[in-house]
């Protein structure tokens, strides 16, 4: 049961942390339209996270609610990808982070739609439409910037090079994940690597970008070992509930 809870929390934490990062753009987008686009995506992934937290609470069976998992766990208990806690940087960096993640999650949710776990399958079926759109959005922006001006090309290439080392973690299953794969609940993420890589190659070719060749990757996020950024995100995210536990609007 613990592995199942952990796997669901991994999916939930991804959404929560990415939403928090995207939310930082609110009011700061380059133009109003893109500001709204990013916060829309933030709300989509936050919505996905909520479904997973609610389900984690049920699986956990300790009578906690979704808020507990978002607001009262510490850094080492968070299982999100390192990629998602990386700072927004410039627009190119935010878009590239989004593209790497959308590309992966589209493959994950497609597989999870036929998970042995009905609840996970149902959440995946709902999320896939959102992620399809996110992927279209982020892919188009990668192409637009890569094949845009000299400056946009250089910035988006730099973003790809900088974030590349955080993508390897996608394809290395955590122990709880392996157990879930054996029960037909999770999808074997290693098997998604080719499809993911092919899509990166395809979009980068259209964007006239170089696919980074580095093959050393960071890891740890899935098992709670994070970069220095997660703690700072959590202080912001959890402040209110830590200072005034149980407070509501």
């Amino acid at each position, binding site marked *: 049961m613990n592995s199942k809870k952990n796997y669901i929390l991994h999916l939930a934490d991804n959404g929560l942390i990415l939403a928090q990062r995207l939310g930082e753009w609110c009011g700061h987008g380059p*133009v*109003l*339209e*893109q500001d*709204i*686009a990013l916060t829309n995506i933030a709300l989509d992934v936050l919505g996905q996270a909520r479904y997973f937290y609610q389900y984690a609470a049920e699986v956990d069976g300790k009578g906690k609610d979704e808020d507990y998992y978002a607001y009262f766990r510490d850094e080492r208990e968070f299982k999100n990808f390192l990629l998602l806690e990386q700072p927004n940087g410039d627009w190119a960096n935010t878009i590239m982070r989004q593209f790497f993640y959308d590309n992966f999650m589209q493959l994950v949710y497609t597989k999870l739609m036929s998970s042995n776990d009905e609840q996970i399958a149902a959440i995946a079926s709902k999320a896939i439409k959102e992620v399809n759109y996110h992927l*279209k959005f982020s892919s*188009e922006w990668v192409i637009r910037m890569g094949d845009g001006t000299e400056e946009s090309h250089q910035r988006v290439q730099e973003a790809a090079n900088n974030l590349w080392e955080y993508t390897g973690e996608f394809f290395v299953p955590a122990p709880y994940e392996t157990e879930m794969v054996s029960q037909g609940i999770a999808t074997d993420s290693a098997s998604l690597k080719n499809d993911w890589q092919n899509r990166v190659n395809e979009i980068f070719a259209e964007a006239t970008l170089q696919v980074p060749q580095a093959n050393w990757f960071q890891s740890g996020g899935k098992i709670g070992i994070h970069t220095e950024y997660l703690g700072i995100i959590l202080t912001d995210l959890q402040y209110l509930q830590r200072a005034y536990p149980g407070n509501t609007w």
Partner: protein
Amino acid sequence: MSNTKNWPLWEVFIRSRNGLNHKHVGSLHASDSEMALENARDVYTRRQEGISIWVVESKNISASDPKINEDMFDPAADKVYRHPTFYDLPDELKHM
């Protein structure tokens, strides 16, 4: 406009339900039509306002001149016979 940093303006039309026509809902900035559609989706359909979107670059719309509104529209005011209101319609005929 000499300032190429500004994205062109687009007019957005939304069909709210099947069977209804597209209605103008507002405008936005975008670099190309694909982005204009996505921006329109994010700005104007977040609350389920529509099921179909048209965008057209504002510069491609020709508008009537408000200064000649009297010449354009006043002559229709006293042509009441142009409304087909003198026919007896059967009760079964709805929505006329």
